[in-house]
């Protein structure tokens, strides 16, 4: 009889201890989740807004966003050149990376023999682990000379006289320009994008593919009419998440962009992006307005990234809804 009481007591003890642990974990993890997920981004935004107040007051929002002059001496600032550079290099790198990444994902999930899949998968993922400065140095020392002496003159030769498109290839080929930057950026985001898209492809229920094969569909038809439509919003989400990386990439772009705050007139013109301008000018910004304008540009990057990630999240939500059905 006594034994039973003892056992009951110890069970109770274990229970309370478990409850305590559970509550403790709930509280502390909840705190960190709240802090990292909600408080920190809000705080960062508030600080950016606070530090940028001088520039916001002086230049306004629309004017700052649409003005192309960036003159630290006259303390006259506009962010359009940087925003434009950021958006254009991101879009271009996406245009180059997306087909390649989707191709890699299709190869890994559908085409490659089973023993080969993990090898390619791992190799692609390893690419994602290379620090961006390595891409920058490689781009600067190896790729830009090739672009400047071989690829870009060739492009000018072949496409320079074509109406409309030819305009994109005007100017002296220096190798430090929109084209080279976008190319290196695309190489940097391909592994990331390919992994996300591959995961989405793997989510396609085998039964759907098998049904399609059973109906006599070819491999290509299955990929085009089953796999890709089924995962469309997953692919889109993955693309936009990688765009987030391209948007904020600094180190590699610093080496390759030519760092000129101007609207590039062609793909062979130098330009700059928001994060590059920040990295270049922050340390030596010696007047209050100058520093504040840099914070303001940072705020714009924050807003652009936030919007992009918001869209990505929305896409993923839609995908999840489809899985449930």
């Amino acid at each position, binding site marked *: 009889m006594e034994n039973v009481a003892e056992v009951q007591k110890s069970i109770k003890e274990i229970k309370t201890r478990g409850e305590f642990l559970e509550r403790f974990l709930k509280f502390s993890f909840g705190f960190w989740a709240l802090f990292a997920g909600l408080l920190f981004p809000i705080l960062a935004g508030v600080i950016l807004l606070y530090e940028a107040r001088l520039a916001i007051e002086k230049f306004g929002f629309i004017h700052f966003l649409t003005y192309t002059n*960036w003159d*630290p001496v006259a303390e006259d600032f506009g962010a359009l050149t940087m925003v434009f550079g950021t958006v254009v290099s991101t879009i271009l790198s996406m245009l180059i990376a997306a087909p390649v990444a989707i191709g890699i994902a299709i190869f890994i999930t559908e085409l490659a023999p089973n023993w080969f899949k993990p090898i390619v998968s791992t190799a692609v993922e390893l690419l994602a682990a290379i620090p961006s400065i390595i891409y920058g140095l490689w781009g600067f020392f190896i790729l830009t000379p090739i672009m400047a002496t071989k690829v870009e003159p060739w492009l000018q030769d072949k496409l320079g006289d074509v109406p409309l498109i030819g305009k994109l290839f005007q100017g*002296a080929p220096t190798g430090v320009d929109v084209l080279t930057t976008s190319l290196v950026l695309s190489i940097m985001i391909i592994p990331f994008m390919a992994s996300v898209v591959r995961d989405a492809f793997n989510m396609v229920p085998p039964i759907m593919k098998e049904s399609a094969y059973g109906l006599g569909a070819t491999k290509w038809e299955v990929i085009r009419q089953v796999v890709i439509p089924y995962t469309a919003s997953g692919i889109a989400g993955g693309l936009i998440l990688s765009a987030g990386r391209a948007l904020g990439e600094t180190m590699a772009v610093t*080496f390759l962009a*030519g760092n*000129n705050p101007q609207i590039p007139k062609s793909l062979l013109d130098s330009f700059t992006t928001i994060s590059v301008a920040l990295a*270049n000018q922050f340390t*030596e910004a010696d007047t209050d307005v100058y*520093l504040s304008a840099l914070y303001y540009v940072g705020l714009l990057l924050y807003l652009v990234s936030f919007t992009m990630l918001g869209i990505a999240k929305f896409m993923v939500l839609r995908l999840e809804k489809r899985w449930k059905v």
Partner: protein
Amino acid sequence: MKKVLLATAVFSGAVLALEITGAGSTFVYPIMSKWAYEYNKVTGNKVNYQSIGSGGGIRQAINRTVDFGATDGPLTPEEVEKNKLLQFPVVIGADVITYNVPGIGKTVLNMDQKAVCDIYMGKIRKWNDPYLQQLNPNVKLPDRPIVVVHRSDGSGTTWIFTNWLSKVCPEWKEKVGYGTSVKWPVGVGGKGNEGVTNYVKRSQGGIGYVEYIYAKQNNLPAARIKNREGNFVEPSVRTMQEAAKNAKWDKSKHFYEVLTDQPGKDAYPITGATFILLAKDQPERAKKATTFFKWAYEKGDKYAEELNYIPMPANVKKLIFEYWKEHGVAP
């Protein structure tokens, strides 16, 4: 007992040794760390210098987060007064104009203010431009476009270069002005001295400006620049000290003096100095810094020269010591 003694010794040692913090100019970082190392060996005092850039150095000095700040461009006397600071020069530096002109070998080119200004304004676009050719009658300059290179990051090197151009070229002053970064009319931007050098080396027909020390260490060609008296002067320790010697250093103006375009037959025109900023209203902290700089002025010249920095001329050092005394921060 032994333990207690040891503990006391360690503890008192920690109290006696000064801990001096500084921040700013990246240009002086190598010599600052060398001085800090040697100074620590002699005195046991620690100097912690962070090369965060001149802009950061000025801000931290104003906010009093460091004992001294270092900047490549001097603050105006009004700014110094307004922020209750003290300012004095510590070492001299200079920019050289380096180039990569195919077919001229190791020939040293002559440049004058008009040539450099027009190249950086985008008006002279080819190396065989008659104006450049007339400056260099003995060289056959090629028919090649000039690739103009400048710094992309904010920098004291840019400050000195653009300050010189603003002084000698009215058009530059009016359209561009000077600062740690400016709105460049033409050219591509390289990050750091190494970025500029690489662009210049790689492009046939490149021209750029880099720090003297960097050019010297890397054996880059450096143009002779025409100075105020009309002589073409090569950048060297002697010609830069000449510029510093002839400058009108004024204690009452907190040494506000830019060494670009100074008089003197042999003065190199694109010369500058790095300045130290101290807190006038915190004399105890300022004195900590001046003990270090007094040692550096008296014993540090040889280390500076080893690293290709140019020490301040003796007459200027004397002025600085008097300046400290006047403001009650002499060590």
